[in-house]
């Protein structure tokens, strides 16, 4: 990559929003890029909506806060409503089509819906829905390779959750496959 990518991730507490963002930040560090992860840590994290911001760059990262994101990843309807206008021209909105049933439109960004809950359910664990989303996100943006993500998943799960590594890797693959099946490609225009 040769620029700065600002990513906003939002959803209900418990949907794996923070982990989604941290996987990106750990992957960026692994690939020797600069990165910054910032959670919403207010009372809303104790139930209700949760969101985090991630910046990935091959340059020095200045402001940790930003208004418009390059990429918006939303796991539920309230998050879409809250953040869909805060997107850059040529950006990407990736949403959870299992929970957001209305048509999503944007005159600024490419919009892609993935039924991550249904795909995760078919894999046998609703818990990995966020990893299905991550797979779809990585397929669209080309940010990190499977080799990087696999290593980060192993590190993240540690010994205690080593048995969860395989299904997380499957979920990433399923998310990537879904994007290829839809046949959508994303090229940032600005």
């Amino acid at each position, binding site marked *: 990559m040769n620029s700065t990518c600002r990513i906003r991730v939002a959803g209900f507490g418990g949907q794996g929003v923070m982990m989604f963002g*941290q996987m990106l*930040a*750990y992957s*960026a*560090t692994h690939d*020797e*890029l*600069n*990165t*910054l*992860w*910032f*959670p919403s*840590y*207010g*009372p809303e994290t104790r139930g209700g909506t949760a969101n985090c911001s991630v910046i990935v760059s091959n340059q020095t*990262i*200045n*402001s*940790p*806060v*930003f*208004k418009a994101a390059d990429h918006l990843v939303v796991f539920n309807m309230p998050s879409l409503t809250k953040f869909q206008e805060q997107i850059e021209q040529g950006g990407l909105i990736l949403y959870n089509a299992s929970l957001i049933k209305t048509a999503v439109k944007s005159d600024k960004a490419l919009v892609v819906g993935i039924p991550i809950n249904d795909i995760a359910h078919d894999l046998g664990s609703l818990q990995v829905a966020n990893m299905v989303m991550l797979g779809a996100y990585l397929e669209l943006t080309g940010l990190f390779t499977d080799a990087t993500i696999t290593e980060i998943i192993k590190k993240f799960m540690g010994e205690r959750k080593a048995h969860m590594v395989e299904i997380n890797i499957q979920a990433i693959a399923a998310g990537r496959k879904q994007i290829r099946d839809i046949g959508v490609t994303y090229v940032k225009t600005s």
Partner: protein
Amino acid sequence: MGRILMKGNEAIAVAAIRGGIDAFFGYPITPQNEIPEYLSKHLLANGKAFVQAESEVAAINMVYGAAGAGARVMTSSSSPGIALKQEGISYLCGAQLPAVIVSVMRGGPGLGGIQPSQADYYQATRGGGNGDYNLIVFGPETIQETVDIMKEAFAIADQYRNPVLVLVDGLIGQMMESIDLDRPVKERNLPPKDYATTGTRNHPGRHIINSLYLDPLELENHNKKLQQKYALVKAQETRYETVDLEDADYVIVAYGTMARIVRSAMETLKKLGIKVGMIRPITIWPYPEAAFDLIKADCKGILCTEMSAGQMLDDVLIANNGRHKVAFYGRMGGMVPDPEEIVAAIKNFSDWVVK
């Protein structure tokens, strides 16, 4: 070793260990809880001291005791908790005891909120404790800089026998960045801790740690010694960074997270053809007044920006000494401005002029 991804609070704890911490005393408060959480695991496992005290007041007095015994000692808290420690901080300065205090600022006044703020600049630089004292106060802008300063902080405190305060906002505490823990630290020649109360088996005669001087002449002489020390700190430890200052039509002054937001705003302003520079104090006490002498004479104005109602603004006005127009833009209560707001404040400079 390459860079690793760490949360600010945890990085502060790791850097304290690298800096040689012997003991930590504190009381929980958001948004700095990961500091004591991390230290509670690692200090006890390595034969060092960790106490979660019954209150902030107890914790700062434990700091006083351990510092008096010669230990490298630390406490951390957030705004209302630092308020409770003020009496002990004044005593540490009076008794000339080294310690490291980390203040992770949240919105106030009162219990306020838990979102990032810079409204404790007065608390850090003017203090809430009694008497003519100063803390050596750092206001780093990134997790990396916070780590570098934390690794050095115990040695600075030991060199001057004075508490060092590392002042960060909740954002620095809560975010994660990729950092290098192994950057070199300046070597310092430290005086022996010949004041430490380690028991008469270790030193002939009694050592007394005290800040009480009932004879006013004796107390004035003690104060003169302290003032000489503070003058030395000013001469030797003042730190700041300037960015594109020489040619700047507008100069922005910011510290901590605000300085990073200003850097992004400066990129936009340059694209608009506006020549803008920055003064970034790294120590906020001593304040880098000399940096303001580098501003060109026909500069159109100085914008001070903070996550507060304008506290560092006082020091900007003192340093500017009536030379240029000064404006202020700030947000309060845990609101963090985005770079666009700073761009707008420079474009509409005259709307924000205070003096």
